[in-house]
């Protein structure tokens, strides 16, 4: 299950990706925080995505997780549009025969989604202002763009 959605994410739905032989499933949910990294109070976030590329990136990340951690099943769902504090922005589920691979694969998948999925967020503050925020790890995957290194693309966000 690899999706960009506009409605509330129900994390339990990701468990449909668990296979009958799996003995452990780990689900990570990312939630809209009430404060920005700089401490400013936030009313919500607005997300947008380059959808076909984001979904393809989710599939690539899942394939990489299988290469690294073996036989794991992965589901990734990211919400876009206007989200309020406390709502789920992203959910990642990894399942495997044993818990170790499931934990490792889940961590890998969410880290890579944040690093390179073409998804953007704008923080909305209680004073009515707003600001696009980049992930510190973000570099859109690195290798494809003619030797332009990751550090060049990092933002102070």
């Amino acid at each position, binding site marked *: 299950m690899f999706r960009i959605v506009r409605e509330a994410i129900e994390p339990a739905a990701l468990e449909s990706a668990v296979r009958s032989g799996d003995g452990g499933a780990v689900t990570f949910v*990312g939630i809209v925080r009430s404060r920005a990294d700089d401490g400013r109070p936030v009313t919500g976030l607005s*997300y*947008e*995505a*380059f959808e*076909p*590329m*984001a979904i*393809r990136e989710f599939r690539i990340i899942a394939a990489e997780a299988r290469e690294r951690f073996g036989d794991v099943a992965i589901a990734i769902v*990211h919400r876009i549009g206007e989200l309020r504090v406390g709502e789920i*922005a*992203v959910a990642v589920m990894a399942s495997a025969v044993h818990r170790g691979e499931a934990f490792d694969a889940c961590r890998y998948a*969410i880290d890579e*989604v*944040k*690093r*390179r*999925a*073409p*998804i*953007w*967020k*704008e923080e909305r503050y209680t004073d009515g202002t707003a600001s*696009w*925020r*980049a*992930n510190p790890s*973000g*570099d*859109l*995957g690195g290798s*494809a*763009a*003619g*030797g*332009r290194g990751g550090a*060049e*693309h*990092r*933002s102070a*966000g």
Partner: protein
Amino acid sequence: MRIRVLAFARLRELLGAPEITLELPEGARVVDAWSALAQGCSELDEQRASTRAARNGNLVAFEEPLADGDELAILPPVGGG
């Protein structure tokens, strides 16, 4: 040639539209499309170093040649999750 440009997040705001069509001379590269977009918009041009380009859904260098009918996405630093 004619290409379709998709812009996201802050780049979309600076460009003033999520999608525009550009007419470029034959042999144009991504960098030429960028120059055409940034002409008269120094705020957009300032984003060049942090912008990635995707041609028909694949990340490419700014030196990548373009072809008629291409979809060129310009992508600012990501913030998902």
